C-alpha cells in the first residue's frame, strides 16, 4: 500500500516538467554559484615590488592548517628528561586602531592569550608536534599540545613555577606557586614523538582582534600586532644530551621587503635571568577560506526547492486533483507522509551530486588563484556535503508540509522562505548584534545551516566567533535537528488538518 502511494506521488512529481526543471536548476545553482564564487576569489602577496604567491599556512601532524609563530630558546633532549622554570613577569605592547590616521597608536599591555612558558617540541619546524605549559595574559596557567588541545590550570598569573617532564611519548605539565608544592596541570600523549626533541622556553602573543560593525551590514574583524616580553629565571634542564648551548629560533618569522625579519622576537640572557620577546600564536588557523564557502549557492537553491515543493503540495488543491488522490488512497495521513518522503528523497538525490562535486572543484580553482582553503578531515567534509544536501531535503519536507497546511501556494511559499531564509540572512548579513543573531540561529529553522560549519570554535584562540563569520551557536547536528523538528511538527500538523478538514 505504502509503496503504491510513494509511486503515485513520485509519478506526479516526475511528470510535471517545471518541477523537474526546478530541481535540476537548484542543483546547477549550487554548482554554478560555487564555481563563480571560486573564480572570483583571488589573493596575491607582494615582497617589495615583486608579486609572489601567498605562503600557505603550515600543517600540523593531523593535516590541520595551523599558525605556528613564537620565539623559542631551546636545547636538545634525547629520550626522557624535563625542564623547570619560573615565569616572573609578563609585559608587552598592543597596537590599537590609529587615533590619528597614519600615526601608530601603541599602548603597553598584555593581551588575554599572550603566553610564555616552557615547551617540548619535536623540531623547530613549523607544525611539528609539541606540548607546553604556560602562563597567559588573563587565562591563568594552561597546558596545551598539538595546537587544538588546551587544559586550564590555576587562575593566577606570573610569578609562577612551571615544570614539564617527558617520559617516552607522555609529557606531564606541572605548576607551583613556590617551586616546592607541585600540582599537575595535565598530561599530553604525543604519539610517535621522536627520540631527540627540542626543550626550552617560549613566548608568543596573538594579534589583538577587534570587531567593527559594518554600517552596510555584517561586521568585519581586524587583528593588530601585539608583543609580549616574559622574564623567566630558575631555569633547569634535565636529561641526556641537554648540555649544549641555548639555540634561539624565531619560529615562523616572516621577512620584510628589505630582507630583515618583520616583527622579530628577541632573547636577552643575563646570568640566570632570561627575557624572551615573542609575537604570533601557536594555534589552529581559522582565518583562511572554508569548504562551506563554496556552497553559498545553497541559499538560492533553497528558494527554488521551496517553490517547487510548495507547488507540488498545493497544485493538487488548485486543480482539484486532491479529490482523486484521496479517493485512490483514503488514508490521508499516509498520503501526506508519502508526499513528504518523495519530496525529500528527490531533492536529496538532485542536491547530493552538486554538494559533493562543488567543494573539491572550488578548492582547485581557488588554489589556482592563490587562495588557500582550510583542509578538514574526511569525516567533516562528508558531513558538510551530506548535511547540506540533507538540509535541502528537509527544507523540501517543510515546504510540502506548509503547502498541505495552508493549501495556498503564495502563503506557504512566503511562510517557508520567511522561516528558513530570512533568519539566516538577518543573522549573517544585517546590523543585528551578534547575540540576537545567535538566538535567531538557535530558535528558527535556519538553525539547520549549522550543518555546514567545517571549522569549530576554539575556546583558547581569540577570534570573531559570530554567525556573520560562519560560526553557528549550535553544534552541526544539533542545529540540523532543530530544522528536522520543525519539519516533523509541520508535517504532523498537516496530516492532522488533512484528516479533519474536507479536501
Amino acid at each position, binding site marked *: 500500500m505504502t509503496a503504491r502511494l510513494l509511486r503515485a506521488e513520485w509519478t506526479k512529481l516526475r511528470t510535471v516538467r517545471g518541477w523537474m526543471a526546478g530541481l535540476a536548476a537548484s542543483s546547477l545553482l549550487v554548482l554554478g554559484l560555487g564555481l563563480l564564487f571560486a573564480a572570483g576569489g583571488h589573493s596575491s602577496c607582494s615582497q617589495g615590488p615583486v608579486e609572489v604567491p601567498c605562503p600557505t599556512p603550515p600543517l600540523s601532524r593531523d593535516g590541520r592548517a595551523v599558525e605556528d609563530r613564537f620565539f623559542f630558546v631551546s636545547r636538545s633532549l634525547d629520550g626522557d628528561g624535563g625542564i623547570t622554570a619560573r615565569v616572573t613577569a609578563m609585559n608587552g605592547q598592543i597596537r590599537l586602531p590609529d587615533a590619528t590616521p597614519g600615526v601608530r597608536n601603541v599602548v603597553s599591555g598584555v593581551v588575554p592569550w599572550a603566553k610564555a612558558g616552557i615547551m617540548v617540541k619535536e623540531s623547530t619546524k613549523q607544525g611539528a608536534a609539541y606540548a607546553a605549559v604556560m602562563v597567559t595574559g588573563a587565562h591563568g596557567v594552561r597546558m596545551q599540545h598539538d595546537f587544538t588541545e588546551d587544559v586550564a590550570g590555576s587562575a593566577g598569573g606570573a610569578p609562577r613555577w612551571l615544570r614539564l617532564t617527558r617520559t617516552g611519548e607522555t609529557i606531564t605539565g606541572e605548576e607551583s606557586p613556590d617551586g616546592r608544592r607541585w600540582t599537575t596541570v595535565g598530561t599530553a600523549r604525543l604519539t610517535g614523538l621522536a627520540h631527540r626533541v627540542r626543550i626550552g622556553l617560549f613566548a608568543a602573543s596573538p594579534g589583538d582582534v577587534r570587531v567593527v560593525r559594518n*554600517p552596510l*551590514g*555584517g561586521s568585519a574583524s581586524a587583528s593588530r600586532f601585539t608583543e609580549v616580553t616574559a622574564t623567566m629565571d630558575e631555569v633547569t634542564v634535565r636529561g641526556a644530551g641537554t648540555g649544549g648551548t641555548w639555540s634561539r629560533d624565531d619560529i615562523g618569522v616572516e621577512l620584510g621587503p628589505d630582507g630583515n625579519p618583520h616583527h622579530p622576537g628577541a632573547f636577552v640572557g643575563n646570568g640566570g635571568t632570561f627575557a624572551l620577546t615573542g609575537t604570533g600564536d601557536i594555534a589552529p588557523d581559522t582565518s583562511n577560506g572554508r569548504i562551506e564557502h563554496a556552497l553559498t549557492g545553497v541559499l538560492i537553491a533553497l528558494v527554488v526547492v521551496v517553490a517547487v515543493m510548495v507547488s507540488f503540495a498545493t497544485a493538487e488543491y488548485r486543480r482539484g486533483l486532491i479529490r482523486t488522490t484521496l479517493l485512490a488512497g483514503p488514508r490521508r495521513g499516509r498520503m501526506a507522509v508519502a508526499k513528504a518522503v518523495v519530496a525529500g528523497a528527490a531533492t536529496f538525490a538532485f542536491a547530493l551530486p552538486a554538494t559533493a562535486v562543488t567543494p573539491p572543484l572550488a578548492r582547485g580553482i581557488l588554489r589556482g588563484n592563490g587562495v588557500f582553503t582550510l583542509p578538514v578531515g574526511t569525516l567533516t567534509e562528508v558531513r558538510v556535503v551530506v548535511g547540506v544536501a540533507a538540509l535541502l531535503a528537509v527544507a523540501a519536507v517543510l515546504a510540502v508540509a506548509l503547502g498541505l497546511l495552508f493549501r495556498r*501556494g*503564495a502563503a506557504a511559499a512566503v511562510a517557508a522562505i520567511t522561516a528558513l531564509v530570512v533568519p539566516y540572512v*538577518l543573522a549573517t548579513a544585517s*546590523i543585528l548584534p551578534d547575540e540576537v543573531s545567535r538566538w535567531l540561529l538557535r530558535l528558527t529553522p535556519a538553525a539547520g545551516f549549522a550543518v555546514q560549519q567545517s571549522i569549530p570554535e576554539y575556546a583558547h584562540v581569540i577570534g570573531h566567533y559570530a554567525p556573520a563569520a560562519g560560526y553557528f551557536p549550535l553544534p552541526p547536528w544539533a542545529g540540523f535537528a532543530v530544522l528536522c523538528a520543525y519539519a516533523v511538527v509541520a508535517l504532523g500538523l498537516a496530516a492532522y488538518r488533512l484528516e479533519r478538514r474536507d479536501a
Partner: protein
Amino acid sequence: MRRELHAEWTKLRTVPGPGLLLLGVVVATVAVSGVAAGVMDCAAAGCGLDAVRVSLFGVQAGQALVALLAVAVVCGEYGTGMVATTLAAMPRRTVTLAAKATLVTGLTLGAGVPAVLGSLLAGRLLLPGGGFTPEHGYPPLSLADAATLRAAAGSVLYLGLVALLATGVAVAVRDQVAACGAVLGLLHLFPIVVLMVRDEDLQRILWQLSPVNAGLAVQATTDLASMPVGPWAGLGVVACWAAAALVGGGLLLRLRDA
C-alpha cells in the same frame, strides 16, 4: 481607467485576504522594528549605529508581506481562471494592469504610513533604554528632523515601489509560488550575494544594484558619505527595478494568451 479601477477595487475589497495582508504589513513592520529597537544597544558615544535606521528595521519584514499582497492580487486570478473573465470584461490589458498596480501601490502606501510612523514611535520609546540617549549623541527621534522625515517618507515610498516591482514580476511569472520565490529571492538574497563577493569594486557595484541595499539607503541619516549611493538615488534604483518589472510584465500580458 475609472471602470478598471472600480472593477479591481471591487475584487480586492470583497475577499478578506488583502485587508488581512495590509494589517499584517503594519503589524510585522512595527513589531520587527520594535524588537530591533529593543535589542540594539549603544554602550558609549560613537557606537556607529544609525538610530533612525535601527527603528525602521521592520520595513525589511513588511516588504515581504507587501510582495505577498501584490502576488496574491495578480496571481490569484490566474489560479482560479478569473483572469479570463477580467480580460473579457476589460480588454485593454495595459490599462487593467495599470489599474491593478495603482490600487496595490495605493493600498501599500496607505498601510506604509502607519507602519513607518509606528516603527518610529516604537524606536522613540525603546531606543533610549538601549543607550541611545542624548549623552551618547542620540536625541529622541522626531519627524521635525529633516533627515528623519526623509528616512520615514522614503521608507513609505520604498514599500510602494516594492509593491510595483512585485506586481510586475507576478504578471510576468503568473504562478503564485514562483512569483513569491522570485520576488523574495530578489529582495532577500541579493544582499547575501553582495556580501559573498570578494572583489570590493564588484561588491560596490552590486550593492548599488541591489534593490534592498540601495533602496534602504534612504533610511540612512548618519555617515551618508560612506554609502555607495545617496538616499534618493538609491530609491531611484528601486524605481528602475519596478519600472523594468512593470514594463516586462505589461509586454508579456499583451503578447501572451491569458
